[in-house]
């Protein structure tokens, strides 16, 4: 709980083989990290579409994490490199929209790194708390009738 009471909404995309396992180990070790970090499982960090990340920010996320396997360890050989390249290009793009680059965090967490998972989650939470809420819908408003005709 912060002074302002702001608890960021953070979405973490975790890959089935490494970072999901890392989160599991964090659980087995009973390590604690903020509950506002919510996980979405994908098979590979290479599946994470930059569109998802933008949708997350648009829909209320204050921060997004993409957690994949360490370089050279990807279960699908190079999916994590795809995630790396996409995030590297997405951050400056988000910056141009005036979304702070730190709101998108890419990291490598192996299936055994429970400590790292908890630490990365805590650090992300601190970082985003300092940056404050993004509140994108409000920030770009007012939006005029957004319905797509049926």
């Amino acid at each position: 709980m912060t002074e302002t009471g702001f608890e960021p909404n953070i979405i973490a995309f975790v890959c089935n083989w490494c970072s999901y396992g890392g989160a599991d180990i964090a659980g087995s070790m009973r390590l604690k990290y903020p509950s506002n970090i919510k996980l979405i499982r994908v098979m590979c960090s290479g599946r994470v579409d930059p569109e998802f990340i933008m949708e997350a920010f648009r829909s209320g996320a204050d921060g997004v994490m993409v957690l994949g396997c360490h370089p050279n360890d990807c279960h699908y050989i190079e999916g994590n490199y795809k995630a790396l390249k996409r995030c590297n290009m997405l951050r400056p793009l988000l910056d141009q929209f005036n979304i702070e680059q730190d709101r998108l965090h890419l990291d490598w967490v192996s299936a055994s790194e429970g400590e790292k998972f908890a630490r990365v989650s805590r650090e992300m939470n601190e970082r985003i708390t300092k940056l404050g809420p993004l509140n994108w819908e409000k920030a770009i408003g007012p939006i005029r009738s957004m319905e797509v005709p049926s």
Partner: protein
Amino acid sequence: MSDKPKIAIYWCSSCGGCEEAVVDLNEAILDVVDAVDIVFWPVAMDFKYEDVRKLKDGELLASFINGGIRLSEQEEIVKLLREKSQLVFAFGSCAVMGGVPGLANMTDREGIFTRVYKEIESNDNPENRVPETETKLDGKYDLELPEFYDSVYPLDQIIPVDYYIPGCAPSPETITDAFTAILEGKLPEKGSVLSPTKSLCDTCPRKDSKPDKIEIERFVEPHHYDKLDDGRCFLEAGIICMGPATRGGCGERCINANMPCRGCYGPPNNVKDQGVRMMSALSSLIKTDEEKEIPKVIETLPDLIGPLYMYGLPSSILFRKKIK
């Protein structure tokens, strides 16, 4: 009073190119004029807003509206046309996606007015006057200007749109096909974009020589490249061609003129945000895997929004830049 179907053509924040596109039909425009009655077309005919207000609801078969919406007057008139029309067509990239004027979503009203009316070096505006919605002229006349919104909106964010005719401007073929479909009653389901959905690569003259593997080592702007006419896929040389994320139907005019596609026909059917999809494709094609080298490759492209969202910023997921 003729029995011909009535149509209206209206422009919002636009350059006039879409009006010219209609004229570009050349002789075919005579067929159009034969087949329909144009009852409202500010650029070419002397009808007034009152004439539109007098129409019955649904009396117009179709309204073709081009330009992005950023003035209250534009919002008012397009809503009026919506009431009076059976079908509303978003005509041209600006109405479909926001268009080039949509790039103004990188700033806001204050930013624009400050730059245009105060900062430009050739201004002669010692009192730093800016347009205001309500002004008293000479102390006695109440003058009202349309409200200038902070953002540019595509047409379908203001009124329900039935069909989209894409392009900046739509090519004569696209326009002719659309008109023919309307007059023959062969329009597809509502909400459709009236152009093939497959992206430009499908019909691109440079497709056959495109290699199976493209590896981008750095991004290059067309004017820095001396082999634009070698007939090879632009992406091979690191030139951003929006073709893969842009629907076809334009006749590849730009490609045939040795210039890469800039995306004016908008994304294929099930793509919501053209810019981010293209960005995903481009970044995935970067050659190096080294963590330290990847940012250097991306730095060769100093501006991302320009090439990726040249026509589609207001219809993108994030809609506009956040002004602090």
